[in-house]
């Protein structure tokens, strides 16, 4: 059957080839196309030839085909196999290169993390990853649970940028962070009431710079030191008042001399609910806080609007502050510090202060408000005891009201005690020019009957009224400028009534 098929195919091929040959032959021998034999006749000739030579030609052609095509087929097949193998090899190589690129070249090496690991240790020091059956394999002694730290490879690819950032962050966390904060203040008091000999239109300038050092020597523990230098002249040097027109002037101990203002260690205990701060402290950083009137570098500059005058902590010195903060609406604080003029022992005379801080929002009628009450004493003398209240209550998201009250007991030599009142309003966006600006109005009323700071009093009490307004322009994260206007309405210190208007400008930078 196969032979029949072969024969018939061969015949058709031979027939077509013969015909083609005849046509070409006739065309080439004929002088013109007009004399060319008609196709029909050629076909007849072909048919005759086919009949005569068909068997012979078929055999011949088949032999020729086999002779010619077989080697070609073999060569082609070999080449084909070779190309296929080569292509597969090449694909394999490319895949490997791609895998390498994906794994290493494009990004970085594998990431490693250090992990805390629970281990089980035998008495002989052998370490096991699991508890086994509770006994060491060699001596059958009980296993002891312990832990260690071990490096662990993680299949995380990080870009070079991420690795650099992580390394920088790690370096920062290990080292000491240094920050610088500087303030300059210029004030020009204009006399409205007082003696002719009192200053008027004079120019005062003060500058201060703080360098902070912060490090974290252990978990939940922080070390902080603040080295400060203050220099310049405050209007308080010339204008007798108890509110202090420049808060920096109050902190000025030695002009243009570097001194350690604070240096303490802070740690968190009992589930981080109790904060303990030990060292050279500034108690005003922990007590009598106020969100709207507590920072002389960005809010009011009048010292009586920074802290309650009757809080009267000793100058910065050795002390301890304990803060119980369970992160609810209640906080308790207790502070101890070396008393004034103590030279022999820290326990000679201890300044003690206690404060309760409660978060209240009038049952949702207003946003949050902080209500604080404090009580302080130094020794057992009545005149060294005082108490105070402090409130900062948000009226809306952009308006905050604040209020302070202080009551200091006096000795029996005086007819009445000392009192202090201050309050005001702070405004934020949208009531400002720019979104991070703020401005505020504040008033102070002090009624002081006695006090060692004012020992030059001869008769009666000091009553002083002051108003301050400021606008704090937030220029950049590191630079703020604020414009202040203080109005010392009435001060009867030294028995002479004085009144001053004090415009000022403050520049504050932080890095």
């Amino acid at each position: 059957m196969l032979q029949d098929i072969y024969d018939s195919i061969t015949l058709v091929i031979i027939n077509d080839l013969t015909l083609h040959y005849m046509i070409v032959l006739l065309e080439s021998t004929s002088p013109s196309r007009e004399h060319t034999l008609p196709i029909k006749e050629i076909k007849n000739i072909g048919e005759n030839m086919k009949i005569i030579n068909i068997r012979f030609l078929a055999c011949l052609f088949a032999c020729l085909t086999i002779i010619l095509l077989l080697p070609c087929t073999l060569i082609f097949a070999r080449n084909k196999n070779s190309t296929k193998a080569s292509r597969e090899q090449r694909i394999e190589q490319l895949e490997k290169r791609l895998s390498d690129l994906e794994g290493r070249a494009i990004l970085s090496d594998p990431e490693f993390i250090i992990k805390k690991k629970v281990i089980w240790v035998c008495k002989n020091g052998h370490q096991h990853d699991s508890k086994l059956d509770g006994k060491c394999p060699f001596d059958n002694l009980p296993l002891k649970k312990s832990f260690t730290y071990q490096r662990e490879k993680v299949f995380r690819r990080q870009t070079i940028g991420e690795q650099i950032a992580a390394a920088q962050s790690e370096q920062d966390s290990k080292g000491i962070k240094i920050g610088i904060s500087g303030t300059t203040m210029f004030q020009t008091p204009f006399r409205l009431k007082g003696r002719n000999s009192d200053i008027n239109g004079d120019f005062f300038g003060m500058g201060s710079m703080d360098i902070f050092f912060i490090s974290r020597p252990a978990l939940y523990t922080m070390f902080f030191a603040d080295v400060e230098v203050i220099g310049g002249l405050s209007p308080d040097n010339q204008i007798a008042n108890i509110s202090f027109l420049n808060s920096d002037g109050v902190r000025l101990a030695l002009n243009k001399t570097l001194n350690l203002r604070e240096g303490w260690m802070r740690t968190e205990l009992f589930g981080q609910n109790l904060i303990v701060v030990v060292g050279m402290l500034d108690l005003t950083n922990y007590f009598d806080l106020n969100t709207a009137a507590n920072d002389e570098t960005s809010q009011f500059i009048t010292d009586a609007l920074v802290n309650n005058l009757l809080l009267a902590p000793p100058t910065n010195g050795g002390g301890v502050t304990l803060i119980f903060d369970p992160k609810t609406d209640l906080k308790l604080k207790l502070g101890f510090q070396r008393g004034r003029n103590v030279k022999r022992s820290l326990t000679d005379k201890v300044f003690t202060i206690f404060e309760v801080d409660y978060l209240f929002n009038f049952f949702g009628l207003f946003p949050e408000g902080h209500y604080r009450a404090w009580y302080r004493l130094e020794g057992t003398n009545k005149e060294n005891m005082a108490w105070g209240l402090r409130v900062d209550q948000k009226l809306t998201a952009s308006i905050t009201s604040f209020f302070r009250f202080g009551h200091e007991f006096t000795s029996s030599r005086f007819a009445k005690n000392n009192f202090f009142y201050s309050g005001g309003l702070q405004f934020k966006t949208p009531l400002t020019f720019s979104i991070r600006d703020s401005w505020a109005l504040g008033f102070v009323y002090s009624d002081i009957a006695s006090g060692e700071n004012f020992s030059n009093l001869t008769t009666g009490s000091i009553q002083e009224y002051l108003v301050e307004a400021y606008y704090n322009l937030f220029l950049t994260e590191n630079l703020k400028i604020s414009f202040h206007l203080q109005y010392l309405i009435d001060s009867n210190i030294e028995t002479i009534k004085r009144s001053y208007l004090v415009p000022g400008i403050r520049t504050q930078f932080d890095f």
Partner: protein
Amino acid sequence: MNKRYLISILFVVCLSFLFSVMGTAKKKIIIKDPRSVCVIVNRDSNDISFMSLKTNKIIGKVFLGKWVNPHMAVMTPDGRKVVTGGTRSNKVYIIDVATLTLLKVIPADIGPEHLAISPDSRFYYQGNPDGDAVTIIDLVSLKRIKNLGGFAEPLNITFLPDGSKAYVANYGGHWVGVIDVKRHELLKKIKIGDMPSVSQLDPKKYLSEIKGISNATITRDGRYLYCADGDLGIVGVIDTREDKLIKIIRVGADPWRAYPSPDGKKMVVVNNGDETISIIDVRKNKVIATLEAGPDMVGVNFSHGKAFVISSSSSFVYVYNLESLKPAGRIKIGRNLELQTAATDAAGEKIYLTSSRDHSIYIINGKTNKTTRVPNVGLYPWGSFILEGRDNYCH
């Protein structure tokens, strides 16, 4: 006789083949109810774990491939597929939930992270922050429709409940992109707030690094979007009917994003710049409380009228009473942990918090604030997802 013999043999062969196929198919079904599992995306083991909500045991994992580092995993609303983007492989992965098999891997753009699925489970929008593009995938044909460019570090994507529009938050800009889901085209760009003119004085901040919008948080009714802008310290409110900014609310410094309370009345915004939270009254569009919180806050979940704020680096979850608007303590999860995001179950009873450093999930009982640890869920778990859960989000 021969014919009969052959037919009998053929019949027996066919029957045995049929039974074997049926047997294999039955064996492969691992998850019958997709609502019964918590999906956990493990960044370093490059897999997705499926944890039973009943037994708290891992019932299966799907390995995606080496160096994939998946970021966020989401189950389609129909519960059939889980999708995730491999941040380092620049591909997206589609998993069949029932059989826990990897169905398809499709190329995305550079650094795929956050994603969203259309409510009808048809389209999968994958944000590629490093490629400034959103890859759009048809979940029926499992083919990429297009890579839609023109964004600036697109992070989270939010679909409207009717699926007509998708909103893309641009962390590398201060605008939200609106995509027409029918045509998959960027329709509009909605600006959130004006740059203050004084910003020109601070190139160090504004030209070196940008903290724009990480998420457009939709209200429970789908009407408004709350978009926190980190650099500006504001939350812009967008009306989704008109795609118009209707209100700017000042919040704390460097707000990350807003999270909606279950009753839809409040939004909690975490401000990482000053470590506070701002609670916004949605009806009044006003901040009604600003409360102290912790560092590096990465998420907020809700349960029993309380907001649970996750502070990543402090290992604490801060708790706030949403009725009294006061802090209600904090939960110490552990020590030296790196807490990531969490999902709340459908009943709003339990919170499934991922903790990457100790490769664990912590289940917080919303009523008692007690925690249960499920260790070894995978390496570096980065996020969790529960189908029909109350809170599902990524960083």
